[in-house]
């Protein structure tokens, strides 16, 4: 299990590949992965950069508890959860969640559960700077899968 807050540039494919190389080959049949990336637009405005603030002590605790409870609830071989903080630019990854399991159901469900929690409960806040120079706090995240929205 690897759970980490990342303060510098993050390469999701590389991190997942490297971590996967540590797993016993042939031990998993499914890998599900999600990468949240900074877009260059939000609510019709062009965005030039953003700062991700967090509550470090609570983030660490929350992410570890989340990983533990997801590992308990799903039949996983392994999981990985990395989340950026600090200044981020469009096209850069913000979060990567990856899960490995024998069969696809566990991998998908655990991956989605973690992403959903990271988006709705983990204490991170985005403050974006528009291309015009004005900055503003992002007030809410969009709804997740199967939310009915």
């Amino acid at each position: 299990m690897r759970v980490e807050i990342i303060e510098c540039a993050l390469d999701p494919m590389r991190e997942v590949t490297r971590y996967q190389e540590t797993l016993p080959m042939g031990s998993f049949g499914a890998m599900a992965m999600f990468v949240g990336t900074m877009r260059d637009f939000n609510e019709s405005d062009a965005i030039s950069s953003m700062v991700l603030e967090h509550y470090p002590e609570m983030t660490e605790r929350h992410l570890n508890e989340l990983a533990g409870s997801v590992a308990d609830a799903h039949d996983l071989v392994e999981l990985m959860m990395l989340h950026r903080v600090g200044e981020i630019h469009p096209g850069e990854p913000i979060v990567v969640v990856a899960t490995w399991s024998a069969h696809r159901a566990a991998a998908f469900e655990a991956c989605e559960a973690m992403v959903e929690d990271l988006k709705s409960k983990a204490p991170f806040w985005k403050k974006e700077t528009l291309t015009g120079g004005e900055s503003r706090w992002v007030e809410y995240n969009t709804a997740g899968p199967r939310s009915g929205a």
Partner: protein
Amino acid sequence: MRLPHRDSLRKRLALLLDPISGMSINIRFFASLADRVGMREVTISSEGVDTAKDVWLACVRSMDIPGNARVAINQEYASFDAAVNDGDEVAFFPPVTGG
């Protein structure tokens, strides 16, 4: 060389606010809520403070608790009616927007 008066004040403050002695509450504000209240971190005496709501009232006089504000006690989500004890850390913040 320290001034005797300053030392004395420090001792009294420590007595009042030292988390070890269990007579203070550490309060933190994050993101847009920190901007709105104009504070990021403050320590108050725990006297007369029973709930998270009391904590807010004791340190933010300029505004009511926003309807969408969240509270965490010792890094765990709590309700505004939840009990707060000496030495606790209470955090107020807006809805999260990570991921």
